[in-house]
């Protein structure tokens, strides 16, 4: 299917999962849907106009998985294979809806090349300390207990992610919420290593900034 797969070794347990699916094991199917469903939904959402349509795309993709699993040869990871089916369906559906592909927005500044991780005014602009912090980041570990793990703090992070450009939002969600590794994210989204990293970098930096504002109040 593609050149990456020549040296590919499937993750442990994958053969068993595939065999269980083929044998009609309902629990394995449900577990897989529970594990991959959230990310599939999010990715489908990038291509189509609404959550409801995205959900339909995810369902269609699973039907595609079932009809294809008999021919699955294990030359890529099951996860990658499933997501490839998903993105194909989502693209087809998005094209029918007349939507432009999400990657066009990547060029339109999603990668944010000029966007600094930290506001430039946090650093000395000239003089002996040029490029050094004017006001140092504080130690969050010294915050009152439970501040960092509180529901409200998590809500602030969630809002910050919701406000991100689409590709940044997708990458940080897949990496830091859904637990995909960088190679999986690159395969699924068709991103280069450096693009994936830039998107993750911008996204995490913005969430950090939102948390800083919330945890420390207005610094000025």
């Amino acid at each position, binding site marked *: 299917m593609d050149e990456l797969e020549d040296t590919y070794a499937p993750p442990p347990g994958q053969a068993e999962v595939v065999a269980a699916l083929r044998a*009609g094991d*309902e629990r394995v*199917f*449900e577990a897989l*849907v*529970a594990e991959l*469903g*959230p*990310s599939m*939904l*999010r990715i489908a959402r990038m291509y189509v106009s609404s959550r409801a349509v995205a*959900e339909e795309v*995810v*369902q269609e993709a*699973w*039907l595609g998985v*079932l*009809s294809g699993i008999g021919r699955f040869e294990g030359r890529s990871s099951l996860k990658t294979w499933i997501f490839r089916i998903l993105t194909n369906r989502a693209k087809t559906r998005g094209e029918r809806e007349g939507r432009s592909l999400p990657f066009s927005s990547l060029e339109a500044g999603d990668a944010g090349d000029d966007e*600094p*991780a*930290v506001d*430039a005014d946090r*650093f000395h602009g000239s003089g002996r300390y*040029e*490029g*050094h*912090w004017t006001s*140092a*980041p*504080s*130690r*969050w*570990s010294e915050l009152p207990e439970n501040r*960092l*793990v509180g529901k409200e*703090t*998590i809500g602030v*992070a*969630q809002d910050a*992610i919701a406000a991100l450009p689409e590709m940044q939002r997708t990458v*940080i*969600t897949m990496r*830091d*919420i*859904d637990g995909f590794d*960088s190679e999986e994210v690159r395969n699924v989204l068709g991103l280069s*290593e450096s693009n994936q*990293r830039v998107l*993750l*970098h911008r996204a*995490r*930096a913005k*969430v*950090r900034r939102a*948390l*800083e504002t919330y945890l420390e109040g207005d610094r000025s």
Partner: protein
Amino acid sequence: MTGIWQRIRGRNASELTCIELVELVTDYLEDGLSDRERLRFEDHVRGCEACTNYLDQIRETIAVVGRIEPDDLSDEARAELLAAFRGWVRD
């Protein structure tokens, strides 16, 4: 022992500033720096409390984000999928 001038020159040539370091944090955490770059990065962090705190904040940010519950398919969609699976098993 290196001479003071040599040390200053070495500093100018290779030492990162904080504003440069913050842009390398993700490359560092993703293991995307060359050995030389990684040493420069770690040298700076070791000597800079502000950047140590910044790096910690990024790690803490990742941990906070990791506590967000993933969005999920609706119960109806799950039920339909299970029904489809059962139908597929029967056929």
